[in-house]
C-alpha cells in the first residue's frame, strides 16, 4: 500500500541549524497494516509523516502510495490518497465553519472543487450517522461552528473527516498527545474502531509505549532519521515497555530521550 524507498531530508542545509532529519529511510506497508511509530525527540517521526503527506519535497528517494509514485505531487494532490490527523486539535478543522461544512469539505477530498452546491441535502443523513458513531452528541449540532467544540471533540471530528472518504493511508501524528488522559483514551478507542471497521492502512505516531505495543499489528522505532527496530505479529504482542527501552539502548547506544514518553510509562 505504501512504499518508501531510501528517502532523505535535510533541513536548513549549509547553515548552523543544518539537521539531517531522514537518512535514506525505507519502509513498506501492506494493505491493512496498522503501524505504530515511536522514537525519541527529534528522531524524525513527524518528518516521516510530513514526507509522506508532501508538506515539502524529499531531497532523495521515492514514495509510492497504492502503486502511484507521488514523490513529485504537491501536498493537496497527495491528499486524495491520505487521511491526516495532527497533534494540535486546532490544525485539523476550520474553526469558523460549521461541522457539516467541515465534513462536506472532507467528503470531497481528491475531487475537483466545482460550482455545485457545497453541501447537498442528502449528505446530512450520512453526516448524522457518522457523527452518532462518535458518541459525542455532535449529530444534533450539524450547523454549530467547529470553533465552539472542545479539543477532544475537534480531534474526533478530524478523525472522522480523515476517514469519511476512505483513504489509502491514514496518518496520525500524536493525535491524542494534546488531550487530557480521559479524552485521549476515548479518541484512541474511536481510532481503533474506525480503523478496524474500514480496514484502513494506518501509520500512527504515539508517545505512549503501552499504546504502541497494544495497538496495531506492527511497531517501528525511529532514531536519528532511521528505523532502528521493526517488529510485528506475535513478537510485538509479547513486548513490554522495558523491552523497548532496552532495544533502544542497544540499537542507538544511548538512553531513550523523550520527556513525554518517559512520563507516560
Amino acid at each position, binding site marked *: 500500500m505504501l512504499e518508501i524507498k531510501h528517502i532523505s531530508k535535510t533541513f536548513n542545509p549549509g547553515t548552523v541549524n543544518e539537521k539531517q532529519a531522514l537518512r535514506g529511510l525505507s519502509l513498506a506497508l501492506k494493505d491493512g497494516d496498522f503501524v505504530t511509530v515511536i522514537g525519541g525527540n527529534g528522531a524524525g517521526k513527524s518528518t516521516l509523516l510530513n514526507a509522506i503527506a508532501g508538506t515539502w519535497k524529499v531531497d532523495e528517494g521515492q514514495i509510492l502510495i497504492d502503486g502511484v509514485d507521488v514523490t513529485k505531487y504537491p501536498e493537496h*494532490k497527495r491528499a*486524495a490518497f491520505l487521511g491526516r490527523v*495532527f497533534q494540535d486539535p486546532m490544525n485539523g478543522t*476550520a474553526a469558523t465553519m460549521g461541522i457539516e461544512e467541515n465534513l462536506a469539505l472532507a467528503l470531497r477530498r481528491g475531487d475537483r472543487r466545482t*460550482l455545485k452546491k457545497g453541501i447537498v441535502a442528502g449528505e446530512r443523513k450520512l453526516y448524522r450517522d457518522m457523527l452518532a458513531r462518535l458518541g459525542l452528541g455532535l449529530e444534533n449540532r450539524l450547523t454549530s461552528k467547529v470553533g465552539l467544540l472542545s479539543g477532544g471533540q475537534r480531534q474526533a471530528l478530524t478523525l472522522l473527516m480523515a476517514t469519511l472518504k476512505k483513504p489509502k493511508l491514514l496518518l496520525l501524528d500524536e493525535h491524542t498527545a494534546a488531550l*487530557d488522559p*480521559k479524552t485521549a483514551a476515548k479518541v484512541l478507542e474511536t481510532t481503533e474502531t474506525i480503523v478496524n471497521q474500514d480496514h484502513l492502512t494506518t501509520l500512527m505516531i504515539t508517545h505512549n509505549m503501552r499504546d504502541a505495543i497494544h495497538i496495531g499489528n506492527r511497531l517501528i522505532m525511529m532514531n536519528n532519521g532511521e528505523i532502528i527496530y521493526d517488529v510485528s505479529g506475535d513478537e510485538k504482542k509479547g513486548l513490554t515497555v522495558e523491552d523497548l527501552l532496552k532495544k533502544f539502548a542497544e540499537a542507538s547506544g544511548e538512553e531513550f530521550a523523550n520527556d513525554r514518553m518517559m512520563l507516560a510509562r
Partner: protein
Amino acid sequence: MNIMVLINALPGAAAQGLIWGIMAIGVYITYRILDVADLTVDGSMCTGGAVFIMMMLNGRSVWLSMAAAFATGMISGLVTGLFHTFMGIPAILSGILTQLGLWSVNLKIMGKANQAINVDKYDLLVSLRFIKNVPFYKNTILLVCLITVVLIVVLYWFFGTELGCSLRATGCNDKMARAQGINTDLGRVLGLMISNGLVALSGSLLTQYQGFADINMGRGAIVIGLAAVIIGEAVFGKVFRNFGFKLLAVSLGSIIYYLVLQVVIWMGIDTDLLKLLSALVVAVFLAIPVWQERYFSKPVKRGGNS
C-alpha cells in the same frame, strides 16, 4: 451651521457610501475570508475608473465599459496572487508592489493624471446629478442598491459552492485545507481576483458618479474598506449572522462611514485632516478585539479533570 445644508448633502453621501460599499465587500473577501490584507485595492480602484472612462470616451456602452473595468480589476488581483503564491512574496508586500505598478498602468490607460466625462453627452448609469429630481428608475441610489443586492446574492451563492467553501477553508486554516486536498494557492489567487474585480467595478461606478477619473482616486481605499467592514461588524454583528447579511452589513457600514464623514465636514472640520482622522479611527477599531483579548478576557474553563 445650517441644518438644511447637511440634510441636502446626505443623499449624496449615502450614494457615495453605497458605491464605496461595493469596494468594501471586495476588501471583506480578502481581509475576512482569505485573511489577507490586500493593498492592491488602492491601485485597482483607479484602474477600474480609468478603464471605464477610456472605454466610454471611445464610444463603448456603459455596461461593456463596466464589465471591462471588472475584468481588469481581476487581472490586477491575479498579478498580486501570482506575486504571493508563485513567487512566494508576503501577501502585504505583493499588494504594495501591484499597487505601485498600477500607478504607471493607470497613467498610461488615461494618458494623463485625470479624465473627465460629461453626463449630458454620455449615457451614464449613475451620476451625482441623478440623486434628486429624476424619475425613480434613474435614481442613482436605487440603481447602486440594486447592483449591490445582485452582487451579494451572487457572492452568497458562490461561497456556498464547493469552490467557494474551499476558499473559505483556505482562509480559515490552510493546513487543514491542503490536508483535505484543496489547492490553497489557487484559492488565494481566485479570492484576490474576485475581490479586485469588485473594487474596480466600484471604481467605475465612482467615476460615473463624480464625472471624472483621477490617478489619486483610490488612495487610502483599503482604509475606507476596512472602516466599512469594521463599522458594519460593530453595528450589525450581533444581528446579522448569515453570510449574505454580513456582506450587507459591510455595505451599510460604508454608508454609515460616509454619512458620519458628511456630518464631520458639515461641522466645519479642516478637510485636510480627514484622512488622518480615518486612519486613527480604523487603527483604534482594529485594536479593540486585541485589547479585549489581552486585558478583558476571562480564563477559559476546559473539560477534563487532569
